[in-house]
């Protein structure tokens, strides 16, 4: 029992100081268990590295903010209706399949996976920071594709079918891509007013 305490106590003491504590409650529960190994989670103290990393990060963030203020052409990878498109302002994309927005609707594409300019690119995991970038688009056409033929035939089996179909298509004009949020400063998660279905 004493050996268990020996293992636990230094970890418990280091709790408030530690920067990245993954599931600290597990180590507390383990006080009552007799298992030999406590948990496979480790308490990692990154404090020493943090200052260096923060300095490095703040410099990058500052440089990106500078280039953003120059209003240079941005590009983004957005996820729309199951497909990913690399777009810039002024592009036209066509979305295939049933998609509710009607012609003339002005929409924003919120699933932004990557945004970049000539000097930098921000890569999301999988999406970039909430409300950082606004991708505005207008639906300019709801149409159907050309008639496609689905022809099946089995030789020597007197089997032959022919079907014709057309796929609904939506044409989107990308108006612009711009920074609206602050980099490295995401808004609160509790705010959900613009995400109601």
């Amino acid at each position: 029992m004493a050996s268990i305490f020996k293992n636990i106590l230094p970890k418990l003491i280091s709790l408030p100081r530690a920067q990245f504590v993954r599931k600290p409650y597990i180590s507390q529960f383990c006080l009552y268990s007799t298992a030999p190994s406590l948990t496979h989670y480790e308490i990692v103290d990154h404090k020493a590295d943090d200052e260096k990393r923060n300095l490095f990060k703040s410099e990058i963030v500052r440089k990106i903010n500078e280039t953003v203020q120059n209003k240079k052409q941005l590009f983004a990878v957005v996820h729309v209706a199951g497909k990913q498109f690399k777009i810039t302002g002024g592009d036209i994309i066509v979305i295939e399949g049933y998609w509710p927005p009607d012609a003339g609707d002005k929409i924003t594409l919120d699933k932004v996976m990557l945004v970049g300019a000539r000097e930098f690119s921000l890569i999301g995991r999988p999406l970039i920071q909430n409300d950082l970038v606004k991708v505005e688009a207008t639906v300019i056409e709801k149409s159907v594709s050309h008639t496609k033929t689905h022809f099946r035939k089995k030789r020597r089996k007197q089997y032959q079918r022919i079907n014709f179909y057309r796929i609904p298509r939506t044409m989107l004009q990308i108006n612009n891509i711009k920074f609206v949020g602050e980099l490295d400063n995401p808004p609160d998660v509790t705010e959900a007013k613009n995400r109601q279905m």
Partner: protein
Amino acid sequence: MSNTSLIFKPSFIRNPSQNGLGRYVCQLQRLVLKFCKNNGSSRGMREFIEEDLIDFAKSNSGIVVYLKPRRHRTAVITAEYLNGDKQWINCRNFTKVEILKWLNLLKTQQGDTTGTRFLKLQHTEIPSIQGPWTPYTFRPPSLNLTNFPEESISKLSEKTSATKELLELYEQQKMKSKGTNL
């Protein structure tokens, strides 16, 4: 190459009128609904005209709707667009709902798309912003000044392999468990 490419005219997507860059303008200008007053094949068209046409015309004030009764001919919709396209749809034995559906399609289209086949579903004026990738992009600029062959760069990396690392971890765990069992 299939015969599809012979039947349909290939084209790229484009937006010559720059529609949607400022505001959106409905491209459908004129609709002519042709029908027979007593033939059964234009019954759906007659129903549509009696019940839904007024609502349709009111909600789309930018579209001019003409009615053209003609004896013993099938029902037909003709649509004219801002770009001069004229589209013709045979509405023989169509129901009221089907006609409304086709009219909504015509309303949201930019022109007659029936005879064309898009080669690409994306159009851009700026194909690349960061430029094409080369073997020298994202490399440290210090490489510009080094004389090759350089020994410090070409030597083997001293990283331990993942297998070795796992084995070491395993050994460590063994030692730990032995220590706590005592």
